[in-house]
C-alpha cells in the first residue's frame, strides 16, 4: 500500500506539490466542516451533554453489565472459534479426500453452508433443533450457527492454503512413507496455516463480530446488554452506550489482529524464513472469504 501513490503518479514537482497541498487543505476543510456539522447537530439535540456521557462513571451497574456482556461475547466467540477450526479441518480433509464418497458430500456441505446467511444457520439451530427434539440453550444455538458457517469458510481457507503449497512438499512426504493423514498434519497443515494466516485471522474477526447476532435470539452478549441498558436508562443514552459498545468491539478485534500479527512474527523469526513475501494480502479476502487460488 505504502508504495502505491508513487507508482500511480510521478513524484510531484513543485506545481504538483502545490496542488496536493491545496487538495489537502480543501479536503481537511471539508472534513472539518462535516465533523463540525455533525457535532453541532449532536449538540443541538443535547446528545453531547456531559451528564449523558458521565453515565459510565455514575452507574457502576452499567459498567458491570457491559463487562459481563463482553465476557459472554468472548465466551461464545472462543467456543465458536475452537469448534469452527475443528469442523473446518474435518471438512477440508473431507474435501481433499481421494474417495469420491467422502469428497462430494463434504464439498456439498461446504458450498451449502457458505451460501447461507449466518443468521439463518443460527435460527436453524435455535428453532430447528428443538423441533427435532433436541433442546439447545441460546448460547449453544449461537455457537452452533457460527460454527456451521465459519467451519465451512475455514475449510475453504485451509484448502486454498494447502493448494498453494508446492507439490514437491507433498510428494517428498509421500516418498518418505507418510500416510495421507500424516502428510496433512505434519507437512500440509502447518504451511497452509502460515500462508493463510491473515485470511484466517480476518475470518476469526468476522466470527467475533457475528456473535453480535446472538442478540436476535436473546443470548445476552455485549450488544444485547447495551440494548437492555438503553431500554432501562432511556433512549437518551443510545449514543453514549452504543459508541462505547462499538469501541469495545473495535478494540477486541484490534487486539485479536495484533495477537495474530505477533504470533506470526514470532513464528517467522523462529523459522527464519522470509515467508512474509508469500503471505496473501488480507484485503483479498473480504469477509474472510479466501482469495481464489489460480
Amino acid at each position: 500500500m505504502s508504495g502505491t501513490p508513487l507508482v500511480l503518479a510521478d513524484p510531484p514537482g513543485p506545481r504538483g506539490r502545490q496542488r496536493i497541498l491545496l487538495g489537502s487543505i480543501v479536503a481537511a476543510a471539508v472534513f472539518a466542516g462535516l465533523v463540525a456539522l455533525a457535532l453541532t447537530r449532536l449538540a443541538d439535540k443535547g446528545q453531547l451533554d456531559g451528564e449523558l456521557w458521565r453515565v459510565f462513571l455514575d452507574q457502576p451497574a452499567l459498567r458491570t453489565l457491559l463487562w459481563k456482556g463482553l465476557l459472554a461475547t468472548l465466551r461464545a466467540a472462543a467456543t465458536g472459534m475452537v469448534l469452527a477450526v475443528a469442523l473446518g479441518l474435518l471438512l477440508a480433509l473431507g474435501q481433499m479426500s481421494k474417495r469420491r464418497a467422502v469428497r462430494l458430500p463434504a464439498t456439498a456441505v461446504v458450498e451449502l453452508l457458505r451460501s447461507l446467511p449466518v443468521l439463518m444457520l443460527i435460527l436453524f439451530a435455535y428453532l430447528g433443533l428443538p423441533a427435532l427434539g433436541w433442546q439447545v440453550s441460546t448460547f449453544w444455538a449461537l455457537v452452533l450457527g457460527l460454527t456451521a458457517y465459519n467451519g465451512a469458510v475455514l475449510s475453504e481457507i485451509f484448502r486454498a492454503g494447502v493448494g498453494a503449497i508446492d507439490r514437491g512438499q507433498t510428494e517428498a512426504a509421500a516418498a518418505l512413507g507418510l500416510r495421507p493423514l500424516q502428510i496433512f498434519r505434519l507437512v500440509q497443515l502447518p504451511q497452509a496455516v502460515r500462508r493463510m494466516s491473515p485470511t484466517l485471522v480476518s475470518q476469526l474477526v468476522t466470527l467475533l463480530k457475528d456473535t453480535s447476532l446472538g442478540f436476535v435470539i436473546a443470548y445476552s452478549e455485549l450488544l444485547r446488554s447495551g440494548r437492555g441498558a438503553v431500554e432501562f436508562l432511556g433512549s437518551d443514552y443510545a449514543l453514549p452506550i452504543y459508541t462505547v459498545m462499538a469501541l469495545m468491539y473495535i478494540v477486541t478485534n484490534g487486539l485479536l489482529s495484533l495477537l495474530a500479527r505477533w504470533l506470526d512474527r514470532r513464528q517467522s523469526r523462529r523459522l527464519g524464513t522470509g515467508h512474509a513475501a508469500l503471505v496473501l494480502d488480507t484485503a483479498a479476502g473480504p469477509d474472510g472469504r479466501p482469495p481464489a487460488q489460480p
Partner: protein
Amino acid sequence: MTARRGGGTTARGRPPAASPVSVPAPSRGPEASRLPAACRRAERPERPEELAIDAVFDNLDIFAEGLRRTVELSLFAAVAALIGGTLLATMRVGPVPPLRWAGTAYVEIVRNTPLTVVFFFVVFVLPRLDIVFSYFTFAVLALSIYHAALVCEAVRSGINGVDVGQAEAARALGLTFGQNFRLVLLPQALRAVLQPLGSVLSALIRNTSIAAAFGVQELTGVVQRLTTANPDAVIAVLLGGVVGYLILTLTLAVGLAITERRLERTR
C-alpha cells in the same frame, strides 16, 4: 425510541425472553394470534408430518414477497456500496494525505464493527437527531455503510494486484494520476477484482438477513414469522428460506462466472 419498537415485534425476532430455550409452543401463542391472516394454517396445529411442507407451499406468496424484499435490499445496497467503496479506494490510493487518512480510518473502523452495531447506530441513533426514514431505507443505509468498506478493500487489493509496470508505463507516457487511474489501472483492477468483489456481493446478499431484526420483512423475517405461525412445520419453513437464499447466491455465482468468461474473451 422505545415507541419505535412497534411494527416489527415478530420481525425483531425476540422469542419470549422468559423461555430462553425455544419451544415453538404455548409461549408463542399470543404472538401467533397477533399475526396477520396472511400466515394461514396457524389455526391448524395438528398436521401430519408429511404435510409439513404445505406450510411452505401454502405461503409461497409470502415467501416470494420476502424474497423480493431481500432482492431490493441487496440491489440498492450493492449499488451504493459499490459507488462508496470505489470512492473510498480512490481516496486510499490517491496522493492527497487527508483523503488517504480519512479513507483508512473509515475502513478500519467499519471493518471492525459488527454490522449489527452499524444497524444500531442507524436505526436507533439517527432518529435521535431527527433523521427519520423508513426501516427499509435505514437497512439500505446500514448495509451500504458496512459493505462500502469491504468493497473498498476488494478494489484496493485489485489495484495493488495490477502489475507495477502498467502504472509505470502509463506514467512514462505522461499520463496524470487521474488518467493513469481511470484509463490504465481501474479497467485492469476491475478484472482482477471481480472475484473478491463477487464474494463481497455474496456476503451482502447474506447479510441483508440482519435487516430482519430491524423491522424489514425480508426473507429471514418471513421465515421467522412463519415458524412462529407454523410451530409444527418449523423445519420445512426453514428449508424454504434456505432454498430462497440458495436461489439468490447461485444466481449471483452464475452471473459472475458469465461476466468473468466474457471479460476473459475481450482481453
